């Protein structure tokens, strides 16, 4: 089972991100489940959502306590604590930021945590393509670039299905760019904490 937790702020599409991730996972042949943050969060408030992939039908309704992957849609959340909480040993943390993994760990006070940190400027990329700070597609593409249980094509497909037309295309373009950015990062053309081989080992 793969368990994913997504952090963001109300209005950034955190719930959508979990659902889209589940859809993309389904296209990849997994049983999937997305559980959004519940409640009355207002725009700007910290929000989390969860997603699970598995080979067998997912029964549990327990929140994700030990995520394998954490997606952080807003670097300002790093300082509020909790982003690295419960992270499985050797887990993956993807942060929407223009800074580096080192700075991310510093901001979260997680310098010593056993994890791979990937950074991607998802929001700037999305703003360029979509014009709005809804970085879900870019973040999921970054995830696709960092792991093998979803594909870039699946991410682009679910956004195109959900937002037919220009919005879907803009999301797909942002996904492409974020995917490329992360792949560059992971292959050493930019700063990275890990390598593709390490990630392959984490496949479900």
């Amino acid at each position, binding site marked *: 089972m793969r368990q994913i937790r997504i952090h963001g702020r109300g209005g950034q599409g955190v719930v959508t991100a979990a*659902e889209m991730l589940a859809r993309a996972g389904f296209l990849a042949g997994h049983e999937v489940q997305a559980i959004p943050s519940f409640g009355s969060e207002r725009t700007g408030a910290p929000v989390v959502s969860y997603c699970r992939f598995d080979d067998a039908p997912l029964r549990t*309704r327990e*929140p994700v306590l030990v995520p394998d992957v954490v997606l952080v849609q807003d670097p300002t959340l790093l300082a509020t604590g*909790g982003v690295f909480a419960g992270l499985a040993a050797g887990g993956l943390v993807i942060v929407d930021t223009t800074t580096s993994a080192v700075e991310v760990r510093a901001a979260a006070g997680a310098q010593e945590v056993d994890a791979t940190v990937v950074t991607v400027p998802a929001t700037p990329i999305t703003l360029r393509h979509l014009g709005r700070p809804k970085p879900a597609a870019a973040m999921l593409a970054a995830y696709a670039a960092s792991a093998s249980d979803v594909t870039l094509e699946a991410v682009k497909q679910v956004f195109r299905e959900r937002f037919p037309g220009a919005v879907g295309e803009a999301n797909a373009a942002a996904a492409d760019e974020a995917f490329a950015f992360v792949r560059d990062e992971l292959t050493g053309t930019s700063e990275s904490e890990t390598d593709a081989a390490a990630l392959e080992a984490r496949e479900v």
Partner: protein
Amino acid sequence: MREVLEGSQAVARTVARCRPGVVCAYPISPQTHIVEALSAMARTGELADCEYVNVESEFSAMSVSIGASAAGSRAYTATASQGLLYMAEAVFNAAGMGLPIVMTVANRAIGAPINIWNDHSDAMALRDSGWLQLYAADNQEAADLHVIAFAAAEELEIPAMVCMDGFVLTHATDVLELPTAAQVDAFLPTYAPRQALDIDHPTTIGTMAGPESFTETKYLQHLRFLDAAGVIAAWSERFHEAFGREAGGLVSRYTADALERSRDAAPADEGDVTVIAMGSVLGTLQAALPALRAEGVPVRLVGIGSYRPFPAEALRDALGGSRTVVVIDRALELGSGGVLTGDVGRALAGTRSRVHSVVAGLGGRPILEESLRGVVRRAHAGELGALEFLDLKEGGVPVPHAGATEVHR
């Protein structure tokens, strides 16, 4: 077709395929996604020959449903929590008048303190309203139950609540297979009320019954309610035949080993620890408990599908004399214990079963697998009290640790 869908969307689409004539609702979390979807379908024509009515309160939502149902249309509404209480008077009224309205209750706690998250306090408060109460264990069942609910309600002329856990199910996305429109059309009989507001055969509906007739009126309603158990079971059986999957029914049985749901699962044994639960916690129990069997704890699981009518006989059959019964209860009867436990206790009166009440998940508190396992272990060890609160924070309310709680603020 298997697809990835939010629970609310699944319910909305399935309701639409049941071809309601009138859908009327007032928004309240966590029911909103259902009625938003239905209102959109009514606008686009996907929901044909249906009036979607926006009203000013839940009380009016149920009242519009009463009028629509009495006028011979299939009527649907959805609500939760305070909304259910706000419409309470009309809820009882619809049942008293024998109007087979179907209502989704996106189960949510009742304030004060105000709390928008999931438990079963709302529906439990109206357990004696005369409605059928059918509980969904997951989103697949939530969708499927609506088809069964219309069928059973209309056959019985008793309204039905389909209860699904708020947020936990309504807002969760799962891989589902919805009944198609053609399948529903083939399965669900056309609504043909035995009494309706008909200009060609005028009747007076909703008379006042004095002391000389009220008892008899209620007694007859009671007899019909007794009949309801058989009708619910029969529709569940038909559904299984038609769709090849489990949905509805009085109680759900689970296999002894993998705790997979199966109507053919054997009853528990005297020596088993049997967990009884209702709603989405059944899924968490399915995930949590198999590990205990590996530890040597003889745990079994029984789900309550129909809370009203309460399936005392079917429950006893499924328990098979299990001596240790643990009820995971999602609502609290203050000063007493779990609400469901009361019904279970009444059903098991005179048996040798010992019933433990574990009140869990009030107001959206996550029910953790490990906590559930702990409860069962202690029950097996004879250490579980008659009434316990799952993960109760003794000595006050500490700041919850991140990720393990609902701290999404």
